[in-house]
């Protein structure tokens, strides 16, 4: 149950099937992965929204959405994210499992057809995507980019990464740059479509109770015959000359302090889990060093959390702070990091972090979305363990392994957003 059945259906294209009869939903997704670069990032992002807005068969937004509603409120959505220096575009359909329909309809077959239509048979006018679709989605994408500024926690994290990784692809961000979105032409979007379908790494996923045979063969037919030459890699830097500081001011009540660090990017599954545990002990749980000391004991922050990005080899510590405490908070955070590097990890801290990480891994098996994310992110980073297998590795991790990884952490960038 919930195990991955993976088959390479043509060059660079894998079909991942997870048979699971526990759910009320079924889900099919196509994940297209390309290097993140300034030349194509904005076009890929805009394309993913244009594609999911209409298709030749349902040629406008309203027709497509009424079709989805009548399929018991099925969902069709793009998600655009980064994984290290890669841009990951997923187009997913999810809908009521056939066993639960009112009149025995086969929603799964209709959703599969819809996904093919969306990917391969878009509505084209004179050989390009329609002005209406492109302009609508361009405006909305720009608003989405702008809205990252509305939430100051997200904004401060983004600004820290942009400054820290200014010479690396991931600084571009998942949607590309705002000005690039504004400047995209019909040709850019058309070539993004062709390139994404023909020369990306493709990870297809089907989850639920429906029989995958037909869908797998259909998709094999759609993706076959393309010589895929895409190469995917991520820059992992571990040399930092000096810590760089950036400060902005804003009309906000609570200031934000985001500290960016370089850390290990392990390839071996057990080491990745050890790195994750390290992040959990430092600031990933409500009993972590940062939460207990910086927030609870010293009352310096309202929140103070660390997150490790294993693929990119960076760690961010972000906190919400009163302006007068911002320097004290930074010192207190560095003190906790120093303790971690010195191997000051109690048995209790280690045990708590292990339980929390295992809980999160095993829980992911109870959601189709989380399962898809676990497996697809896994195969893209060379990790093919099931959540259960990954959880089984957690217990074997030692304090020394974690301390060793902590010692690889180097401060790189400090970003402060100061309230008035």
């Amino acid at each position: 149950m919930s195990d991955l059945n993976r088959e390479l259906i043509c060059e660079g294209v894998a079909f991942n099937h997870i048979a699971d009869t526990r759910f009320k939903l079924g889900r099919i997704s196509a994940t297209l992965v390309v290097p993140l670069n300034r030349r194509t990032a904005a076009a890929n992002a805009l394309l993913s929204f244009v594609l999911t807005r209409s298709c030749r068969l349902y040629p406008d937004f309203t027709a497509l959405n009424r079709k989805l509603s009548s399929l018991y409120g099925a969902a069709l959505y793009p998600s655009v994210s980064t994984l290290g220096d890669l841009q990951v575009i997923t187009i997913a359909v999810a809908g009521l499992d056939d066993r639960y329909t009112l009149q025995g309809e086969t929603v799964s077959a209709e959703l599969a057809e819809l996904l093919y239509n969306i990917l391969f048979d878009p509505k084209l006018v004179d050989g390009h995507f329609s002005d209406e679709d492109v302009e609508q989605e361009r405006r909305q994408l720009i608003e989405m980019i702008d809205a990252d500024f509305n939430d100051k926690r997200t904004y401060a994290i983004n600004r820290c990464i942009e400054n820290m990784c200014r010479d690396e692809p991931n600084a571009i961000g998942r949607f590309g740059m705002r000005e690039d979105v504004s400047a995209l032409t019909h040709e850019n979007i058309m070539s993004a479509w062709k390139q994404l379908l023909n020369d990306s790494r493709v990870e297809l996923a089907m989850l639920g109770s429906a029989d995958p045979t037909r869908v797998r063969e259909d998709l094999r037919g759609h993706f076959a015959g393309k010589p895929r030459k895409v190469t995917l890699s991520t820059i992992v830097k571990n040399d930092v000359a000096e810590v760089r500081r950036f400060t902005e001011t804003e009309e906000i009540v609570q200031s934000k302090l985001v500290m960016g660090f370089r850390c290990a990017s392990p390839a071996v599954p057990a080491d990745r889990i050890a790195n994750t545990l390290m992040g959990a002990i430092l600031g990933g749980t409500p009993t972590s060093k940062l939460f207990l000391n910086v927030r609870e004991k010293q009352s310096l922050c309202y929140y103070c959390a660390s997150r490790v990005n294993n693929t990119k080899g960076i760690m961010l510590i972000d906190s919400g702070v009163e302006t007068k405490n911002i320097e004290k908070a930074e010192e207190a955070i560095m003190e906790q990091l120093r303790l971690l590097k010195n191997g000051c990890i109690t048995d209790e801290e280690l045990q708590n972090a292990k339980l929390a990480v295992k809980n999160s891994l095993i829980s992911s098996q109870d959601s189709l979305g989380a399962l898809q994310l676990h497996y697809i992110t896994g195969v893209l980073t060379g990790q093919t363990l099931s959540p259960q297998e990954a959880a089984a590795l957690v217990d074997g991790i030692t304090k020394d392994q974690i301390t060793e990884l902590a010692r690889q952490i180097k401060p790189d960038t400090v970003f402060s957003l100061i309230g008035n």
Partner: protein
Amino acid sequence: MNYTEISNERLGETYYQVKHPSGLTIVVCPKKDYNSAYALIGTQFGSINSRFICNGKTVTVPDGTAHYLEHKLFESEEGDAFHLYAKTGASANAFTSFNNTCYLFSCTDQFKESLEILFDLIQSPYFTPETVAKEQGIIGQEIKMYADNPDWKVFINLLQALYQNHPMNKDIAGSVESIAEITPEVLYECYNGFYNLHNMVLCVAGKVSLDEVLAVADSKLKNNEPVSTESVFPDEPYAVAKPLIEEKLPVAVPQFALGFKENAPLEYPTLKEYLCTNILLDAFGGTGSALYRRLLDENLINSGFSSSYLSGPGYRTVVFEGESREPRRAAELIQEAVVRLHETGISQEDFDIALRSVYGNFATSFESPASIAYEFVNAHFARHGVFEAADILAAVTLDDINERLSHQLDPQNCALSLITGIE
């Protein structure tokens, strides 16, 4: 122990309901082959319950008391509950809303130990002047953080514009000033009234059995004498307090929330009323609607646009929220569409499509242990069943929806809240 077993064949789901001798209502929904369990215990004490009669005595408490009490109960004499849950690996939390407070955990192992912690928490009030004072700093920080959050502010400001007297017009966490008035005595009074087990419900879903839950309940829960605790609400006129409220915050895209206030008795809407409103809103403002299309075509909304129904004791409001470069124009168009809607009603075709969508959403709410637990707690508070929705949706007609519409979306009784950027 006597329990009720309730099944729904179409959904393939069964749950068990027990009135435990301690007074607690317990609902358990086991999910075969799941790996995690989700437990949620709640009481109908939220930010709006700031005035109540408990065993004949009228009590008025400062704004933000329910949330403050949640923070204080979440820590015991031994310290923060997070430390206790850390030993079982459960992921735990608590939250306070307008009309309830809930404590929860999710776990994959050591369910018994986690449930014991949960029961201990809600049965071990420990408030001294020192511990109460200590929390003021951290909650003050939380209040400040929310003050910077435009999503929250646009919503809270809307409620201020809609409600003249009803405490829905107050922020859930209160203010730095109001929480300074909270004392141990205030907290004990609220605790005794609302955390009496007769006034609480526990819902557990996922990898769990009824027997497991009852065994912990039997060993941990102390028998409570029932107390009568009745919230008192001021009379709320039908009319909104003011039609417009605007605040400036550093935002790149302005935000708006448009609320249509309704007559609201102290009872929750019935399940049928609630489902009819869902169908109505999906047909009128969902992604497949003419309204949604028009707003998109005129560049007035983006995919963040949504509609929702906010309802509870003494409040019922339909809310449309979104981001817009021209939020006033967006609101104007929605109001015009509402006027037309009352003239034409919902069409048969729009109804048919929306009905299927609402049915799909209902069926898939039985997907995750978390959503099941919330579904049951909310149903308990609103005093309606859960599976009954399937029967209601099978029988509901277009006339029901249009009848429902006649009590909702009064274009003369709405308020607009705007968050616009700082120039």
